[in-house]
């Protein structure tokens, strides 16, 4: 099943070399539906506690992987619905294969047990998406693509230093000959060996891993590529990047945390993650008060939410980690919806400048309302799911004796809230120019369903969600 899940997007990416025109759109639709269906089956199995593995254990899906796979396939399906419109404007022969290749690398990163292969997959996500960022081939998108490629490649190379150090720690465990445990880079092996590894090496490795994968995750101060790439990429790619690419970076850090904690104690990783989380919140809060461009505004809102996820992981405990995981899912869906709607707004108004968009609610009633709801969700207001996960994260902060950090984060959250509210107010209300709505009503259905699901996770959890979240959390917190 895991092989099938990874095989569909990879095969599709290859098939686009043969398929042209309508055939390409059909391949895209079939592959996207197939990935969604198989992904949901894998997720359902995994979050019920049925671990699956394939290819001699290289691929392994536990409840945490299953959780991430679920988020990835749902966000990817939302993005895929909107993709044909963007692909037709430019070159579908570039767009479709890279879109599915990116999906393949994202899924591989969360479903492999080998931390070396995970590194290869995370780097692969960058390589697959560089040309998607530069899809419009303007000066600005070229600049964004260059920064994205360089900063993320350097960042991820730093994470490789961390991976080498982990492997080193695993080898020098016994003084004597250098002999790696069989499959010494497997996460399961490392977790079992954790308490025997040198804390000093692991701490140094963790610093490199956090800086490296944190670059990918968009944690401040390594976030500098993020607003450019998110604002220049076509909307479905922005949705995929903001919704799941960042979370995959967080996922990588999350996998290493219990290994380091087992050897060096939880205080070290906690301090780093809380510090970076607070810094991300501060950077985002400052910027959200003066955004010039609404796609950049959404990108900084992603920095804010990734900062919150980092805080949740830093606070730790069952509550903190499950809050962070739930926040990853909620934010992924909400941000994908809002980025896709921002694509509609851009198509209608012909600008990404905040000052160019006025009277959205009257000009584009459907898109405008959806955008309004999406932004409310991103502000963390009830009844949306993000409110629940934020409450969980802050409750974890107070419970784990991190009251000062939690209070500071709350304050920054209020500042960010105000900035986002001000900008959204300016866009939504006011005199409306005569603009023609774009997109068909059919594409609005998945977005509406996604928004409804967000309300659902805020009001009452569907059956099985609590159990799934608990199992996924228990992979990390024992």
């Amino acid at each position, binding site marked *: 099943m895991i092989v099938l899940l990874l095989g569909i997007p990879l095969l599709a990416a290859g098939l686009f070399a043969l398929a042209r025109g309508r055939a390409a759109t059909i391949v895209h639709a079939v592959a996207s539906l197939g990935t969604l269906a198989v992904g949901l089956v894998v997720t359902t199995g995994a979050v019920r506690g049925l671990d699956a593995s394939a290819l001699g254990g290289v691929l392994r899906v536990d409840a945490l992987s299953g959780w991430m796979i679920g988020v990835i396939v749902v966000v990817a399906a939302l993005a895929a619905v909107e993709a044909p419109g963007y692909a037709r404007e430019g070159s579908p022969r570039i767009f479709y294969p890279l879109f599915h290749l990116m999906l393949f690398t994202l899924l591989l990163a969360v479903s492999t047990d080998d931390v*070396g292969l995970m590194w290869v997959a995370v780097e692969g996500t960058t390589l697959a998406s560089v040309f998607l960022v530069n899809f419009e081939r303007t000066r600005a998108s070229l600049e964004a693509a*260059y920064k994205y*490629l*360089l900063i993320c*490649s350097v960042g991820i190379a730093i994470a490789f230093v961390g991976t*080498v*150090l982990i492997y080193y720690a695993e080898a020098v465990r016994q*003084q004597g000959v250098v002999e790696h445990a069989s499959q010494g880079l497997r996460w399961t092996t490392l977790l079992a060996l954790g308490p025997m590894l040198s804390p000093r090496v692991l701490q140094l490795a963790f610093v490199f891993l956090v800086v490296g994968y944190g670059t990918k995750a968009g944690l401040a101060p390594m976030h500098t590529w993020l*607003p450019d790439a998110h604002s220049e990429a076509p909307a479905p790619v922005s949705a995929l990047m903001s919704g799941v690419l960042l979370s995959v970076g967080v996922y990588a850090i999350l996998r290493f945390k219990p290994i380091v904690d087992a050897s060096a104690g939880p205080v070290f990783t906690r301090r780093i993650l809380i510090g970076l989380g607070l810094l991300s919140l501060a950077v985002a809060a400052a910027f959200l008060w003066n955004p010039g461009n609404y796609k950049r505004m959404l990108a900084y809102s992603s920095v804010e939410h990734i900062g919150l996820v980092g805080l949740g992981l830093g606070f730790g405990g069952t509550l903190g980690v499950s809050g962070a995981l739930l926040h990853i899912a909620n934010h992924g869906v909400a941000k994908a919806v809002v980025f896709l709607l921002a694509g509609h707004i851009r198509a209608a108004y012909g600008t990404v400048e905040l000052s160019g968009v006025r009277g959205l609610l009257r000009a584009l009633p459907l898109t405008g309302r959806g955008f309004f709801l999406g932004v409310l969700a991103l502000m963390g207001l009830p009844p949306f799911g993000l409110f629940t996960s934020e409450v969980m994260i802050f409750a974890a902060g107070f419970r784990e004796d991190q009251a000062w950090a939690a209070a500071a984060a709350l304050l920054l959250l209020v500042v960010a809230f105000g900035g986002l509210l001000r900008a959204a107010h300016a866009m939504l209300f006011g005199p409306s120019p005569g603009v023609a709505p774009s997109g068909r009503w059919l594409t609005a259905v998945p977005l509406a369903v996604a928004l409804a699901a967000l309300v659902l996770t805020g009001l009452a959890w569907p059956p099985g969600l609590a159990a799934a979240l608990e199992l996924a959390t228990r992979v990390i917190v024992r």
Partner: protein
Amino acid sequence: MTTITNLLAFFALAATVLLVWRQSWRGRVRLFMVQSVILGALAAAVGALAGRPALLVVAAVFLTVKTWLIPRVLRRMAAGAPLRPVRPGRSAGIPVLVAGALVVVAYVIMLPISALSVAALPTHGAIPLAFAMALIGLFVCVTGRDALGQVTGFLVFENAIFALGVVATYGMPGLVEAGVFLEVLVIVLLMEGVVVQMRREHDSLDVDRLQELRG
């Protein structure tokens, strides 16, 4: 084994420092190749002396990628670029001093780490040297004034991480090494695509001209 790996790692570090000092483009690419040849030899030496035949294969692939494929792409990228990576009139003295300081920093960070394996690893002495190369590569990358300079820095950094993997762990697992080589190659090819477009749009590779996106 300790002597030969320390010596090779030291030569590679010397090549890295020379690369910081060297001003002309062709010279920098040549020094990158020299560094790669030395590191390939280092990997082969560790493979032969420690009885890891897989490392010999990795060394052969490393040499093919780093001294043949990548320099070819780099030369294509450099065709038409300004010949000096540093503005005329600015000396390379300070960067070389910084590189020296980075070697000290590398020893401060890595000596306690490599000391853990004095008995286990004959190559332990080369760990801080490889780490120093990594820091210098990172420094060249972040201070690079144009796209070519930044790419060179990245490649030096990447080479150094390979060396770190060889001396600290006798090479990463084969699947991972293969993935790394493939991705470095793709990165350089993507960079070439970006650089070609950059030259068409801006008529220069100066990253100071990339300033449409702010905030």
